[in-house]
Every structure is written in structure tokens, then in C-alpha cells.
């Protein structure tokens, strides 16, 4: 019987020309830009998933078509492992593509994007396996698949059905690529920290994922699990929630205001729903920190999730309403 390790080495196709982490991002961005997507920059408020960035959460609402792609670092405090686990990260990187409405050939487009990063599908095994998505804090859900490439989940493919408690019409397709996983697969490395992030063309020197990100993982694990000030985090949470609610209340008062006129319409269009959403995202992130810190008791937990959801649902409704006034003005 062959020693498995020997057999493995015999079969291991060397991958000297595989893409670096940043080349992978560039290729995917170019691919989707060429298919009409707006290339957005990562959102600059902490989010737990690319879905929570306003380019997805808000843009999927309402009737307007939109195509966007962006890289989004996503922070999940409870997933941190002090940089000691080769497969787990506190902050991982997603490439998020939202196609609204989804084109008929959306699956084929997705498969072409894999070809664009050097994956010859004829030499691999690809399966679309049922995986439905639900985010209770956002009152959002959709159905779809996890895309499995030789047994590795490389992408979440979701048809959004509801967001912020609002039924979507049209719906959107969301593709979420797990960039670290895909790169590790292409580079055939067993630890995320060994991924080559970039290579200096002058001297061929490689900078690894560990060089760039290990310190983040270590320090934020310590912060999230041990040092985050629970009392202050609660205070931040309460403050952000209160301000968000105040904004939403002021917006509903404006809706109730029967007087119409250019001034009112203009005020409504300029009303900072986007700022309210930032506050909601901060609440969500603070909740995650408190949760990782073990500071949320049984009785509180369900209640706190409901508080964040109430904000998200209120924002989604207001946003849809605000979009209507844009449409009316147009």
C-alpha cells in the first residue's frame, strides 16, 4: 500500500504560477467590472459579512437595477483564534457581487469567473449544494447554494428573497467568494497564514498573509475575548441605538407631515437614512464583541438581537420610502 503522503506528493501538481492573494482580487474585480458591475470600495464601518455593507443591504431594496462588486473585510469577533488555527480568522475577506435583478445566465457567469482565476472546470469537480441563508439581526433571508470545488466550499450563492423584513421585487443574486480559501486552494497551502499575498516583481520576494494580517488576529482576539471593556461597550451600544432611533422617529414625522412642496420633498431626500444605518451597523458589531466577551446573558440575548433587528427593519422601510420620493422627483 502506498504511503498516503508519498502518494500525495506524487500527485501534487506543483503550482508555481498560481495567483497571489491580491492578483486573485484584481482578476475577479476586472471580471465583474467587464460585466457591468460598479466596483465599490470596502465599507469603512465594521461589518460581520459583506451582506451588511450598505451596497448590499440597502441596494437590494426597492425597484432600481444595480450591479456591484466589492471586497469586504468581515469581522466576527467570536471566530478569532489568536492566529493559532490555520483555517479560522476573526477578520476574513469576502468578494461580494450583487446582481439586481439576476441575469438568466447568472450561474454560467459565475462559472466563467472561476475560469478567469485559472480554474479549468474540466479538470475539477464542481457542485451546487443546497445552502439557504438567513440573518435574523437583519430580518433577511434567501435561498441558494454553497458552491463546492473538489469538496471545498468556495462561494455562497444566494437569491435574496427578503431584506429588512421587506419582500424584494426584483430580487437580487448575491455571490460571496471566500478569498482566503480560494487562494489557499490555488496556491495549495494548508495554512491561511502561508498564503502569498503579493510578490515583488523586482526581486520575487513574497509577502505572506501572515506578514500582513497575523498581528490583527492576535491583538483583536485578545481584545475581543479578554480586554474589551464590557461596560463601555454597552454604553456605546445604547448611545448608537438611541441616536439611530431618534433619526428614524424624525423621518417618520416628516412622512406624516401632510404639507407637500419642494422644500419638504427635498428635506426627505436629504434625510440621513445612510447615517442611521451606520449607527445600526455599529450596534451590530458591538453586540458581536459583547457576545464574544461572554457578556450577554441568556435573558438578554434574544432581546438584544431584537433591538438590532428593529433598527434594521425601520431603516429598510424608511429607505424604500425615500427611494420612492427620488423616483417621484425624477
Amino acid at each position, binding site marked *: 500500500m502506498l504511503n498516503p503522503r508519498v502518494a500525495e506528493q506524487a500527485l501534487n*501538481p506543483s503550482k508555481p504560477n498560481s495567483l497571489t492573494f491580491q492578483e486573485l482580487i484584481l482578476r475577479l474585480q476586472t471580471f465583474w467590472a467587464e460585466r457591468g458591475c460598479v466596483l465599490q470600495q470596502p465599507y469603512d464601518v465594521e461589518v460581520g459579512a459583506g451582506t451588511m455593507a450598505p451596497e448590499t443591504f440597502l441596494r437590494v431594496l426597492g425597484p432600481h437595477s444595480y450591479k456591484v462588486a466589492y471586497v469586504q473585510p468581515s469581522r466576527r469577533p467570536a471566530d478569532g483564534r489568536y492566529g493559532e488555527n490555520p483555517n479560522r480568522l476573526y477578520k476574513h475577506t469576502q468578494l461580494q457581487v450583487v446582481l439586481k435583478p*439576476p441575469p*438568466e445566465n447568472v450561474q454560467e457567469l459565475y462559472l466563467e469567473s472561476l475560469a478567469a482565476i485559472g480554474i479549468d472546470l*474540466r479538470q475539477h*469537480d*464542481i457542485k451546487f449544494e443546497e445552502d439557504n441563508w438567513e440573518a435574523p439581526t437583519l430580518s433577511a433571508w434567501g*435561498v441558494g447554494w454553497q458552491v463546492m470545488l473538489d469538496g471545498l466550499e468556495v462561494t455562497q450563492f444566494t437569491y435574496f*428573497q427578503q431584506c429588512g423584513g421587506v419582500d424584494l421585487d426584483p430580487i437580487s443574486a448575491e455571490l460571496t467568494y471566500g478569498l482566503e480559501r480560494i487562494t489557499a486552494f490555488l496556491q*495549495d497551502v494548508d495554512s491561511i497564514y502561508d498564503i502569498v499575498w503579493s510578490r515583488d516583481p523586482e526581486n520575487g520576494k513574497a509577502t505572506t498573509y501572515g506578514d500582513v494580517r497575523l498581528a490583527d488576529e492576535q491583538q483583536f482576539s485578545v481584545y475581543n475575548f479578554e480586554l474589551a471593556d464590557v461596560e463601555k461597550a454597552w454604553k456605546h451600544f445604547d448611545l448608537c441605538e438611541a441616536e439611530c432611533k431618534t433619526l428614524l422617529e424624525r423621518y417618520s414625522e416628516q412622512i406624516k407631515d401632510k404639507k407637500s412642496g419642494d422644500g419638504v420633498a427635498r428635506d426627505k431626500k436629504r434625510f440621513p437614512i445612510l447615517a442611521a444605518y451606520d449607527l445600526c451597523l455599529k450596534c451590530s458589531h458591538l453586540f458581536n464583541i459583547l457576545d464574544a466577551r461572554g457578556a450577554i446573558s*441568556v435573558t438578554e440575548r434574544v432581546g438584544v438581537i431584537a433591538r438590532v433587528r428593529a433598527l434594521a427593519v425601520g431603516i429598510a422601510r424608511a429607505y424604500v420610502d425615500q427611494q420612492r420620493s427620488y423616483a417621484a422627483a425624477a
Partner: protein
Amino acid sequence: MPDFLLEIGCEEIPARMIDAAAQDLWARTAAVLQQNKLAPETRDGIYGTHYSTPRRLAVLFPDVRDTQQDMHETMVGPSAAIAYKDGQPTPAAHAFAKKAGIDVSRLERVTTAKGEYLSAKVTKKGRSASEVLAELLPKEINSLYWPKNMYWRKPGEVFVRPVRWLVALLDAEVIPLEFDGIRAGSQSRGHRILAPSAIQIPSAGSSYVDALRAAKVLSRGEREQQIRKALDAATRTLPGARWREDKNLLDTVVNLTEWPSAILGAFDHEFLQLPEEVLVTVMRDHQKYFAVEDGAGKLLPHFLAVLNTDGDPQGIIRHGHDRVLRARFNDARFFWQTDQKHPLRERVQWLKHVTFQKDLGSYYEKTLRVQRLCSWLCEIIRQSGMTIRPGVVHKAAYLAKTDLTTELVKEFTELQGVVGGLYARVQELDSEIPDATRQLIAQAVYDQYKPESMEDSVPQTPGGAVLSIADKADTIAGMFALGLQPTGSKDPFALRRQANGIVRTIAEHKLPLNLSDLFRDARETYRGSEAERKFSKEIDYAGAVREFFRERLEFYLRDALGFKYDVIKAVLASGSDDVVDVVARAAAVKSVLHMPEFQAIAAACKRMRNILKQAEEKGIEPAAKLEDLPASSPEEKDLAAYLDLNAPKVETNRQKREYADALRLLSTVRDQVDAFFDKVMVMVEDERIRANRLALLQTLLREFSTIADFSEIVTGS
């Protein structure tokens, strides 16, 4: 007569839903053909076939009529009296003629029980199959049952995933049907990667299957065969090895592939130090791999992955699978090692932070309740003379839920209980506890969620059985008290499955536990708790639980033990509280039913019941005590004497739960009963005699009814 084909081309359908959906589409289409007189008359209900892959559901029906036959029918209109005045047709007659589409002069008359009415013979022209199917099938497609569906074009148009093409053919002719904006045609698609271009389906019938095979798509049956062969072939490269048969996994991979093949992968020997349960769960549930074992059933460091492509000549795919499994196993090992830093006994306090159910509090509170309930149950069991070790159960209940806080269970939730058991086996639980006792505690923790399905076994040890029952009873009691019992298809906490588990565990361990006592005690453990304040004020807790368990018992007797419906009804009518007793009585009834005496006795029981019921309705009461009256008939005296003689013996049998013996003894009363009904009139004028005879029947009926209500038995013709 043309062959008919409908193919719904779809983005990948969830594997778990395909088989049921294909069946559903077939049944619906067959019904449409039958109801619309398009199915050939020579066919009975079994007609046509279905064909399914992850990307399509199809149905094929040979020899469909191309046109419906004309249908002649008679319409009945207004009464003749209204329709004609002075021999002339009134507006009512004209309206009816118009509705029937014929001239007034051609109206006829029919005589019914209510009088004379106008009638019209009309001929409904048969429509073409193409027209009928184009109209009706889209509705059927839209109403296929899916556990979860979606819309992609507009709300209201639903399917499991977006439909991308439709093929609808009568022989080579396209049926002009449309669903969700897709028009049917004759173009299908083959394997996504192996045959990417569109394929032409020349005609309905067998050429469909041939065209798909050429495009690297196989039928369900062919795929299953091909997978089995591929698994066998890959395993043969390892001498003495075999792959572990797993029906569910096989069904899954059959429905994840259109053109399957298999590869044999390997992992490092070192991982075999992890418990087999963990390795198999990772392989089966997370990677959909088959485990490989040696001749003795011991796990080998290999796995089998089923691919949806035609092979892996360069070993690229295998390399990928090896790599993924290595990462998964590394994770599992990491979690296992991390978990050992905090032994289970330390984690009990952590359960205060884990929600059991929002109104029922934390798992810590559940732990304390289940511990108390276990103590009470152990006491009942001990008093009945069975062997049980309350200390073992108590400790197992204390540790039972602690594995919910472990990394391993957070990652592999399906291993809850199992992980706790495995950890308890290797950890020091308490320095006082000897090793043998620790193994018993570990086994009880390991088994606490058993049985998880009809096929799963019940907990191995009596201690494990008690813990499993108490844990489930605590959940059911809490949910029922909150008013959250399952309704229809809604059963989010799987209370039915848990109740089935309680019934089976009590029956198989023959535990002396009454369901009503169990649930009174389970409710009692909530007394004074925070949760109790949330309990519903309106609900009749005991009644709801009793009704719920009656259904579960019926299910167990019917589906697990195979008793006939009338036996179940008869037995449950005589009590449904003591599971072991119910099962014993059902077995006894079943064992005597074939005897001719019992067919007669069942009939006699119905008669006695009717007589007693009629008497009760008239306010006539049986005598309080049987008397030997001078006016009694000999048959009556015989029957009374028989009862006097045999009732004590029957009672002894009953005490010992020798129900078959009791019934066999009772069956000898048949001659006396027959003679009694032949010769004796019960409802006579004389009040004393009548009351005495009623009392006699009541006594006799009671003898039988303590075992089963024989009037429920369906007797032969």
C-alpha cells in the same frame, strides 16, 4: 397515439427534495391526463414514469390521446311549469336554451322525483391534448410541493430554484406551454461541464433518455448503479477493505450528480486517534464521503468521494479532497484538544449562559429540573423491583448538556450527546467515582438523544433510558405548558419525534412508568420557576398531553409494531397510560383474533354494548348486584355460573399480565353467550329480571373491556 414528455429544466434542485418532487410531478400529471380523458383506457393507475436529475424533473407518458373524445351530456334546466306558458316558451326557457347552446325547439323534457323539467342534450367537443396540457400543466408546476421555495421573476410565481428551460412534446410536436416566462420547446441541456451546449430532443419517448445519455446525463437508477460500481472499484485497490453502506448518503450523492464517478482519498494515520464518531461525522455530514473499513469493521485512513464528472486522471480532484479533509480533521483535533482544557464538570456553570428556550430559561435550569425528574423516576423504578443506579443517572443528568459549550459540538452540532459521552469516558469526573461507574455515566450521556429516528436504537442502559426520557419529557412538558404544542405540519422543536422516543424507550426497556405520572412530575419540576410565569393560563395541560401521547402510541403500535388499526383502537380504549401494558394487551389481542370464538365474541360485545347503551338512554339501570332469581332462564343461570367460576382466574391472569391466557379463558364463554342471546330477551317488562340481565351483560363486558374494547374489532363478513 403520441408519447408525451414534460421536462422542467432548473438550476440545481436541493438533493433532499428531488425524489419527492419527481413523484409529485408524475402523480399530478397522471391525474391531469386521467381527469381530462387523455390517458389511454387500457391503462390503470400505474402509468408513465418520471425522470430526475439535479437540473431537471421530467415525466414521460406513452400513448396519450391526441384529442379528447367528444362528450355527450344532458343538462337539466327550469321546471316545465315555469318554462312554458300557454304552450309558449317563456324567457326562462330561452335563457336555458342559450346557456345550452341549442335552439329552443330542440329542448326536451325529463321527469324527476320533483316533477317535470326541461333538459337539453349537448355535445362538448373534445379539445386537443396539446391545448388541454398547455392550459393545465403550468398550474400543476406552480403548485408542486417544496419544503422551501422561492420566486425570481415576480412574487407568486414560485419554484424551488429558477426554471431555465422547458421541454414539452407530444411525439415531436411542441406543446405551447409557458411557465414563469419560459416557453416550452424541444431543446434541453446536458451535463453542465461535460456537455455544455444545448441538445435537441427529437421526440418524446425513449429517445429522450438516449439524448440525455449522449449528453452525459443518467437516470436516477443508472446513477445509483454507476456509483455503487465506482465505489466498489475504488475500494478494490485496498485489499480486504470495504466501503460503509449508507443509504441516506447514497441517495444524497445520487441526487447531487448527473454523471457520477468516484475517487479513493486518504488521510494521515494519526487522525485515527480521534474518535470514530467524529471522523465519520466529518466525512459523511460535512464532506459527503463514504467511510472505508477493514474486514473487522475498523475504520481505515481512507475515504470515497463521489464526483459529478467522468474521472480524475491527473489526481487533481483527489488532491483537493485530501486537502479539505485534512483541514477539517485538523480543526476537529484542535477543538478536541482545546475542549480538554476545561473538563465537563467545570462547564456546568457555563450552561447558565446557554439558552434552552427563550421562555423556559437556560440549559442550567433544565439540567437541575431533569436531575430532579430523574431521581423521582429512579425511585418509581426501584420500587417496582427493577435494578437502576440512581447515582449514575443523577451524575449523567448533571453533565448531560455540558457538551453544548464545547468547540467540537459548536462545530459539529449533530454530535451533541455523543461528544459529552466521549469526553466523560476520558475525563476524571470526580475522584471518588470508580472507572466502571464512570463508563456507565458516559454511556448514559452518550445515549441521551436516542432514539433520534424510527431506525435508531434506544439507549443501551436503563440509566441512559431514564435520562433520555426525563430530558424529552422536560422539553415536552415546558412547551405544552407554554401552549406551544405541535400543530399540523408545524413542529419546530420536533416534539413528536421526542414523544415517539419516550414511548419506544419505555416499551423496549419495559419501564414501569405511567405517562400521566411522568408528565405530572415533569410539570412539577417547573413549579415556582421564572418559566412558570410564562405558562399559558388557558391550556388544559394534562388533557393536551394525554391526547398527544395517544396519537404517539397509535403511531408506535401501527408503524413500529405493525398492529392493525382496529386492534389499536380496541386496546387504547381500555387505557393508554401504561405503555408496556398497552403493548402487552395489543400482542394478546392479536394472538387470539384468528380464533373463531373471538370473531363471535367481538360481535357479541357490539351487541352487549348496544343493549346497554339503549337501556342507559331510556334511563334503565342495571342491578347493582347480580342475583339468582327464580324466574331466571337456564341460559341466564349458565352464563352467571360461568362468570362466577372463571372471573377470579381471569383476574389472576390479568394481574400477571398474562393477557393472552386471560383472553383464551374468556373465549370459552362463547357457547353460553350464544345460547343467552338465542333464548333470552333482555329488555323484558319485569323490572327486576331486566335489571338483573343488564347487570349480567355489564359484568361480562367489563371482563373483556379491561383488556380491549372488542366492539372496536372489525369482524369478518
